[in-house]
């Protein structure tokens, strides 16, 4: 029943690079983009590091009329959508009227914009609230703005499952393809570092308070002490193989071969986490056995308890040291829903290039995890990759990609 779903284009803006070429070059060389926050004055907060997309100048890419009505992350999403279609060598104007859908994931919406309008309302009065607030902040904003920019009038969706959303959006997009939609633009661009969002993230006590960028985000390390947040993401062009062939698409980055999502039981219930079950279901969906997976892109929470849960899940499925595991997000920080979308893009590039990009800054991986953690670029024959993502509150998602045939 599974008609092939292929990925034919990608638009990526990450702390590691504008565009997937620059991103790939940097992650391969282990060039971490984590550094001091520059988007606002973070001096007085206990956490002061982020993965920022520092060289993105919206004015260079977008018409000026879009700037006052968009949050920073929406501007990045609009540019990602431009790049994704260009990369797919596809002009949306050539489409059947309802041929292309859009599904994005969000986590906090255009929060920097929303924060400014809360300041206007509470500090000055209702008449100072922007006429754009009604849509610039809400979670569906990227889907709406991207659809308008490219005239995409097919099925549209927006999901929130925190980080896991970056994979769940692709799952929803594939569902649309299976219902006969030829093409869906999907993924997530997320995360605007702003003071109010910073306070919200600090409330989880999972943010790293380390001030040295080389020590702050070290998943699976004996000294793991939380995560560093970041901004950015990726939008991918998903097509049915049939539609891609019909339009003469020249490139396939790979196939989306499997996907599944599960949810954890409540904390304290005594029941086990369901990450491993998500992976098993995604493998079943892809009709692959664990030994057929060539590399795992880990969720890599960076908090010791969650790292242990992920390591246990991988051991139960693949055996001790049973599969190469990597977390290039150690170079970007965790990009909310955008992170797993970037991981899918990075995994597809790894399949194409036959190299596993490294996990950086992890100098003492905990032996108990029994992970084959890839800490320097590793050449390998790669045909399949598994990407994991977990969202705050119990969301688990797993996605399998295979290389182009």
């Amino acid at each position, binding site marked *: 029943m599974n008609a092939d779903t292929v990925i034919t284009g990608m638009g990526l803006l990450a702390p590691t690079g504008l565009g997937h070429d620059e991103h790939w070059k940097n992650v391969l060389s282990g060039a971490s983009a984590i550094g001091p926050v520059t988007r606002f004055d973070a001096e007085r907060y206990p956490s002061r590091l982020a993965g920022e997309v520092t060289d993105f100048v919206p004015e260079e890419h977008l018409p000026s009329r879009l700037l006052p009505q968009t949050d920073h992350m929406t501007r990045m999403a609009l540019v990602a959508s431009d790049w994704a279609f260009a990369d797919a060598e596809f002009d949306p104007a050539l489409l059947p009227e309802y041929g292309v859908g859009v599904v994005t994931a969000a986590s906090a919406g255009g929060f920097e914009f929303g924060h400014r309008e809360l300041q206007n309302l509470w500090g000055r009065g209702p008449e100072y609230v922007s006429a754009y607030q009604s849509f610039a902040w809400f979670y569906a904003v990227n889907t*709406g703005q991207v659809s308008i920019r490219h005239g995409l009038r097919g099925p549209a969706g927006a999901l929130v499952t925190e980080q896991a959303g970056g994979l769940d959006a692709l799952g929803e997009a594939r569902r649309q393809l299976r219902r006969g939609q030829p093409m869906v633009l999907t993924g997530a661009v997320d995360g605007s570092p702003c003071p109010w969002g910073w306070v919200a993230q600090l409330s989880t006590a999972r943010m790293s308070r380390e001030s040295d960028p080389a020590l702050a985000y070290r998943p699976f390390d004996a000294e793991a002490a939380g995560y560093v947040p970041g901004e950015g993401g990726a939008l991918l062009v998903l097509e049915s193989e049939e539609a891609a062939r019909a339009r003469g698409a020249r490139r396939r980055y790979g196939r989306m071969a499997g996907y599944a999502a599960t949810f954890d039981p409540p904390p304290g219930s005594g029941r086990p986490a369901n990450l491993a079950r998500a992976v098993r279901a995604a493998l079943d969906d892809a009709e692959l056995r664990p030994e057929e997976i060539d590399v795992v892109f880990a969720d890599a929470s960076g908090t010791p308890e969650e790292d242990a849960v992920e390591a246990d899940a991988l051991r139960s499925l693949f055996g001790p040291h049973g599969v190469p595991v990597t977390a290039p997000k150690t170079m970007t920080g965790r990009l909310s829903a955008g992170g797993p979308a970037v991981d899918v893009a990075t995994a597809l590039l790894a399949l194409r290039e036959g190299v596993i990009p490294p996990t950086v800054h992890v100098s003492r991986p905990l032996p108990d995890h029994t992970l084959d953690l890839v800490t320097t670029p590793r050449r390998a024959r790669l045909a399949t990759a598994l990407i994991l993502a977990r969202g705050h509150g119990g969301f688990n998602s797993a996605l399998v990609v295979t290389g182009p045939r």
Partner: protein
Amino acid sequence: MNAVTNRCAVITGIGIVAPGAIGVKPFWELLVAGRTATRAITAFDPEPYRSRIAAECDFDASAEGLTPRQIRRMDRATQFAVVAAREGIEDSGIDREALDGSRIGVVIGSAVGCTTSLENEYAVVSDGGRRWLVDHTSAVPHLFDYFVPSSIAAEVAHDRIAAEGPVSLVSTGCTSGLDAVGRAADLIAEGTADVMVAGATEAPISPITVACFDAIKATSPDNDRPAEASRPFDRTRRGFVLGEGSAVFVLEEREHARRRGAEVYAEITGFASRCNAFHMTGLRPDGREMAEAIRVALATARTEPSTIDYVNAHGSGTKQNDRHETAAFKASLGEHAYRTPVSSIKSMIGHSLGAIGSLEIAACALAIRHDVVPPTANLREPDPECDLDYVPLEARSLPVDNVLTVGSGFGGFQSAMVLSGPDARGRAAA
């Protein structure tokens, strides 16, 4: 029905938190009576705002069974959803112990999530907007759950239904409530889950939401006569009236429901969404994309416009919406658009953004159950440009088996769903 799996989703339980009505029974009574629940805002002092009216829920979380801890932790929207889900689960008569948690999922729709709590906490952290306090510990410890509204779906999943299958929050503006249930029905039809607790919730009556709709004059300024302020399809309509509430359903695979002898309200036979790619808040006057969503939903349901007994309209009461929608009905249903009754329950319970789509699905399921169509309240002066049968003022008894419900939202979202009652097949065969 999924053509490959032969599976489809049916509604076996409904739970409601609505303005003027906590619970399914009072909700249906309110709708059938044509009573309006719109009033002057009491949630905060609305004096500085252009629109000072809303449809509020008289909701006592403690009386509804939430613990003090849950009340502290959960945003009002989350509280609504959890309470509605409990009623829906009980109504379905489902025995959770007999089910495999991995085959149960949750989808909740919400347009603005935990916005009320976020704003309250903003006020704390910023000292009422006077100065930004860097001390993050002045906010509640679970602030992140307000920041990322998937927490609403997580709370519902962790509550009575203990779901361990796919759980998500759908946030497509004012079509969230339709899209969430549509997604849940798809997950059942494709075989990913057997039972889904699905619906939507919203508690947006807070200063920032009121201010942002003021800024674009989308909400009604008829502050002097709140009970008559929501007037969909009326010539004198002046915008929508903000509402709040939640409707949550138990959806089951049809055979799953049949095997346990569950009473079925309706089957979700068709669903489709389209985007207008036109404007974040504006609508093309011809209703083109909504018409397409309706056509695709009807085609998925393998039915014709002539089988539709009732259309539950988006009917928000803004000038542009009601015309847009009327055009969409004519374009998709043809002559039948003039024959079938169309009504907007927003005339009574206001427009609760992401929640309203699910509240409207509930109204449709109950219309099928009771063979009664709820009215459009306050419709006294028909707009010549809206020339369909909008069931003014009084509910109407008629056989209701197939129902169409639609939604339209900021971002350009247009969604349509077809629900069919247990008798629909028999009637079609007769």
